């Protein structure tokens, strides 16, 4: 206890330091990060999550489980250390505090402790291989550069972020309704996209082949810039998953947001890109003719993008075109401009590493906070707490709540990272616990219990039959 107090005191001094009270200059550095890991990073929650209930007293717990999980750290000087493993939360926490990694990646659970993989390699029998891994998705805004005009590369703004919102909605609904998964964590990647962790036991035990099947289920893009093919939706009707995604998400976002947000039809260069997707010269020249003529004359207050889109739909969906199968073009255009673009390889293989939630992105200083898929429309990447902002809040809170220090020290016994509840991280951590961690652990307990009972039952039956 006294040691903790002493440490707290020291950390506070670093924050207060010689600077003006409370003002924490923007930026990202090892000193800030050290305080973050010391006071804010939810070590215990992360560790509880990755233990999946195997840290209890239940006789069916797999005590070695969490210790076979790979962590890897990227240190300040770009040194990369793989195959870290921890048997307890304090081991993990101490290592993180000591090494102060700029990035923490989480890998699979292996057949044996990854830190001791070499020792096992000699014994021959225990092959070192991944045995469990969350099903993960990585969606990156840089993959949308051909359909957004507001930013390029790693930049995002509120005009293009809806593309990520769409991805969350489409994937999340399918994971739950189609695949029957329940324990899904979405997180901001800290800069240019979102990560998804599907944590159901069933998901963690998928084979690579099954992972690839799920990734392919989500795939509508055939080819890439080398093959100049984009979305192709063959068949008389859309598969129910695509049909639902279209009517419930894509269409609304395209017509209600992106069309005017991104000015998709406002200039010749942009509308030509869309006309390119219509394989019928008579249709495209008709539309082109109309759009070139009324470039100036459009006096109506209506958004030109929307006016033109309505015209395009009208032409393509008229009876004459329906017969020629051009109707699907409207959908193909909408899919091309909105449908989620997944990094397929990340999802297909168990041994991919993914950045842990609650890390801080070194370039933006923003925390990789969880995103609530039910309220993902409200998520704003530009207001996600930054490291310096959090430290400032911590600093203020620390002064204000000095009187209650005793209480925090009491809490320290359980969660030694006091302080977060005084910062804007509070909401994120509370959400992580109540919407993700608690339901997850509850179902893990049930799973452990029921597998134990079946085993008991089996051994009972065996004895009877003797």
């Amino acid at each position, binding site marked *: 206890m006294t040691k903790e107090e002493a440490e707290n005191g020291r950390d506070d001094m670093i924050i207060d330091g010689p600077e003006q009270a409370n003002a924490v200059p923007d930026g990202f550095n090892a000193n800030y990060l050290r305080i973050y890991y010391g006071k804010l990073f939810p070590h215990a929650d992360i560790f509880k999550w990755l233990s999946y209930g195997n840290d209890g007293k239940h006789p069916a717990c797999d005590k070695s489980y969490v210790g076979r999980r790979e962590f*890897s750290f*990227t240190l300040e000087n*770009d040194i*990369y250390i*793989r195959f870290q493993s921890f048997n307890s939360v304090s081991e993990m926490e101490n290592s993180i505090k000591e090494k102060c990694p700029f*990035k923490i990646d989480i890998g699979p659970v292996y057949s044996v402790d990854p830190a001791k993989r070499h020792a096992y390699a000699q014994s021959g029998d225990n092959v070192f291989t991944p045995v469990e891994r969350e099903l993960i998705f990585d969606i990156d805004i*840089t*993959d949308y550069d051909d359909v957004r005009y507001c930013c390029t590369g790693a930049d995002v703004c509120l005009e293009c972020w809806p593309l990520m919102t769409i991805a969350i909605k489409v994937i999340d609904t399918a994971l739950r*309704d*189609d*695949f*029957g*998964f329940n324990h899904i964590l979405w997180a901001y990647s800290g800069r240019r996209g979102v990560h998804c962790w599907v944590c159901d036991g*069933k998901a963690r035990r*998928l*084979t690579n*082949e*099954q992972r*690839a*099947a*799920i990734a*392919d*289920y989500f*795939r509508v*893009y055939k*080819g*890439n*810039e*080398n*093959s*100049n*093919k984009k979305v192709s939706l*063959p*068949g*008389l*009707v*859309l*598969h*129910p*998953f*695509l*049909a639902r995604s279209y009517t419930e998400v894509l269409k609304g976002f395209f017509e209600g947001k992106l069309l005017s947000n991104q000015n998709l039809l406002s200039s010749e260069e942009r509308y030509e890109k869309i006309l390119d997707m219509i394989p019928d010269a008579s249709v495209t020249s008709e539309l082109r003719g109309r759009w070139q003529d009324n470039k100036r004359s459009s006096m109506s207050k209506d958004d030109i993008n929307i006016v033109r889109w309505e015209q395009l739909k009208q032409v393509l969906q008229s009876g004459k075109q329906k017969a020629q199968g051009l109707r699907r073009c409207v959908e193909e255009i909408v899919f091309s401009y909105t449908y989620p*673009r*997944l*990094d*397929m*390889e*990340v999802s297909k293989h168990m041994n*991919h*590493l993914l950045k842990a939630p609650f890390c801080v992105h070194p370039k933006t200083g923003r925390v990789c906070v969880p995103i609530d898929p039910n309220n993902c429309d409200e998520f704003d990447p530009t207001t996600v707490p930054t490291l310096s902002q959090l430290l400032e809040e911590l600093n203020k809170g620390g002064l204000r709540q000095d009187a209650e220090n005793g209480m925090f020290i009491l809490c320290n016994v359980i969660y030694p990272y006091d302080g977060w509840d005084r910062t804007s991280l509070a909401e994120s951590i509370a959400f992580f616990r109540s919407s993700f961690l608690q339901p997850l652990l509850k179902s893990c307990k049930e799973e452990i219990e029921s597998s134990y009972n079946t085993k008991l039952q089996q051994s009972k039956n065996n004895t009877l039959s003797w």
Partner: protein
Amino acid sequence: MQVVRSHRKSSPSDVVVSTLPLYRSAPPLEVRLEDFELFALDRLRVLKGISDGLSRGRKPEEMEKLAMDLLKANMRHPQATEEVNKDIISHFVLRLVYCRTEELRKWFLSTETALFRYRFRSESSEAQRALMSEFNLPYKAVSNAEFESVKEKLGQVARSMGQSLPTADAVYYKVPFEEVPDLVAARRVFLLKGHAYVAMSQVVSLVVTQFRSHLSKALILTNRKWTSTIRDQEKDRLAPIVEALSSSYLGPDYSQPKEFGEISLKDIDQIARTSFPLCMRHLFEKLREEHHLKHGGRMQLGLFLKGVGLKLDDALAFWKAEFAQKVGAERFDKEYAYNDYTPYSCQKIISSTPGVGDHHGCPYRHFSEENLRAALARMGVSSRTMEDVLDKVRNRHYQLACTLTFEAVHGSPCDTGINHPNQYFIDSQKILQSKNGSVA
């Protein structure tokens, strides 16, 4: 498996005999040593033919015909009654041959499974049902009430595949989606809360999954037996045959650079121009240009470079320099550090599915004609050869297209054909070496 809504009940008297074995247990037969090897070689010809066909991207219907032709050509036996025995014996011999490493097991598992799939599909529906019951699948057909509740969605799926609507007496099975990955991947089933609704005509997937998982487990067990007892017991008799058999068809392993030793960083641009196959040239150029490659590309190029003999320190320096501007080197470090990955073969590269922003894959397969033309022109392929190459591409003979390119660029024949990017590299270096008297 229980078929609830079927009106006919098969009585035990009219047992349908299928000649398709499930290879559940090893044959209790005496095998002559010559047969041991001959049968195995015959089966290998079939499997090799299948894996070639798959790597050329043949369609399922073509594959089915190919498989049946291969069987007819290789698996006949002078005594018709012996054919089943030959089938079983050869399968079990090859299990021994291909159980010994992960790479061998993978190849055998996927090729045997493919063969089984085509054979199953060409059986009569009675025979199929009989085979299914041998597997004892634990699935029930969906009830009428449930069928009604999802009928509309099932119809949507059928029509999305260009099929007619399911009739009222259509039989569907409800199975965990994990058991029909191929149907899920192609969106050929309706999924609801983790269950796939599998039509009777799609049951082949279920059976194949069973076959595959059984064989996969069996291979691990065989491997254990091989290392613990068989290898020593059969040291003088079977073991040499088994070892010779495995190398007779799976090409060499290119994970360790052999022939040309190490290559250093300063030579790499030059060597990329002279000796990289198009797939690697493209990745290499993209990397130089964009200082970024996505995972699939990093793996394909990285493992190739490793096989080519780029020294580890050089390799890391190379990637770090390339990535510094965009990604940071750590991501590659961790991938490159995997020692257990071997460079990808053409077959693997051709069957990959590059997505948006990806540059991996085989240009002959994955480029549009226009882009391929431009790329070939940059390699210095003349317009006449170009037409030959494109002709091969149109017929989906991607490796032959690559072989023609190789021959045109090097001005010398490549009799073995291109099967592996690292083979392309080695053959190219050999030719250049003999021309210059030294490695370029």
